[in-house]
């Protein structure tokens, strides 16, 4: 019998209970880090603008574009840093889900365990979402050129729905990739993608329902102006990690070559426990 979504959520809440302080603290640190880097990027942009205003060439477009490029580069670096931090937080949540202890130092897990693989997965996700967004961008540009005629508006909406559908289908296949790498950073990027697709076979409906059931919480997060996501993200991730662990346990159980091993160790210990003291036998 497959584990229900509510049961997985209950397990996630039990795993997180008593550890919200550490996890939310890690989330705050990650968001503070991205805030600092983004502020630096904005500062570069503003400082460059002021310097151009103070000098004799306020309308020099070259200076504007160079500062804009610097700001974009800093912003991208911030995104990558945050992604690595989030991967570390995922590791914390994985430890909690498997009954281990979690520490704030686990945040740096992705920095110390083959960060290029985590970044590889992130970049693949990023480029796939860019590819899926191309039809929408093309139609939007065409709509802007043609003055937003009704047919173009309808096409724009259709392309947007198509993009959403593509992202959902992609996530149904490869939604567990990061968790697989977090569990074992020695795995290669493509192997993680293959394993995710294999483990999701026959379970996409459950995963879709699980993801859909978080919509209410996401709305609460939006209503709280993003503050609620400090708690919602760990909860969602822990639930998905439990989903992955449950699928893995299920596939172990259904493996055709499986045979139950006798518990030799317990019997061996019991023999010695039952033996009377001083008896050489």
């Amino acid at each position: 019998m497959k584990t229900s979504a509510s049961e997985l959520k209950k397990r996630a809440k039990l795993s997180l209970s008593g550890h919200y302080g550490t996890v939310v603290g890690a989330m705050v640190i990650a968001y503070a880090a991205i805030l600092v880097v983004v502020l630096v990027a904005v500062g570069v942009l503003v400082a460059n603008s002021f310097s151009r205003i103070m000098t004799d060439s306020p309308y020099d477009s070259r200076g504007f574009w160079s500062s804009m490029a610097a700001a974009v580069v800093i912003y991208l670096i911030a995104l990558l840093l945050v992604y690595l931090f989030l991967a570390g937080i995922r590791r914390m949540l994985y430890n909690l889900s498997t009954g281990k202890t979690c520490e704030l130092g686990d945040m740096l897990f992705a920095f110390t365990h083959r960060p290029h693989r985590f970044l590889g997965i992130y970049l693949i996700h990023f480029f796939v979402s860019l590819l899926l967004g191309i039809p929408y961008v093309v139609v939007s540009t065409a709509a802007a050129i043609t003055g937003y005629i009704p047919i173009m508006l309808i096409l724009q909406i259709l392309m947007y729905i198509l993009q959403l559908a593509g992202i959902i289908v992609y996530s149904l296949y490869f939604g567990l990739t990061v968790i697989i790498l977090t569990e074992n950073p020695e795995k290669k990027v493509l192997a993680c993608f293959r394993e995710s697709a294999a483990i999701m076979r026959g379970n996409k409906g459950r995963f879709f329902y699980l993801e859909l059931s978080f919509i209410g919480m996401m709305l609460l997060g939006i209503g709280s102006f993003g503050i609620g996501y400090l708690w919602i993200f760990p909860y969602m991730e822990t639930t998905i990690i439990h989903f992955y662990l449950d699928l893995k346990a299920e596939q172990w159980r259904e493996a055709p070559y499986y045979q139950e091993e006798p518990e030799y160790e317990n019997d061996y210990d019991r023999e010695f426990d039952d033996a009377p003291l001083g008896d050489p036998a």
Partner: protein
Amino acid sequence: MDEDRELGYDIPDTDGKPPEILSEDASPEAEAAGNTERPDGQEEAGVPVWQAEGGQNMVRNPISQPGYGPVPRPEYRRTPHAQQYGQMGDQAYSRPRKQSNMALASLVMGIIGIVTSCCCYGGLIFGCLGILFALLSKVDDTMEGYAKGGLATSIIALVLALLVFVLLVALSIPYLLIGGEY
């Protein structure tokens, strides 16, 4: 077991004997005789797990809850990974509950939401957080008292914030109709 009682678990008094068999397949004669060994003749010290004839291991949830009862867990004790995950599940279920903090936070957020609902953003933010905390604190089938209070106050805060917003819009309509001039 005494430590478990100190932690507040509902553990039946068995006078030093292992806990009772929970499997429905266990023979009534054995229960009457107080024989609590596993049907396969083995016994596992310290772990209240028995294997029924149907192949299901049954375990009593250490925290007595009306909806839980015996928890079937056949799959978790068969493979190393599955066994580890199963033990993790047991640890999670047997861990002392610390949800009251979250429920209390929900109540506090609800009250602050009501107080700040006159400025609609306060009611919205704290109301949403209160509902969120109340939902996160619910690990049983029933909600804790604090969480129920937090949910109620948070909903009230949201409704008040909505009313204030509607009132502000209604008051500003005449001003907007005259083009923003008095």
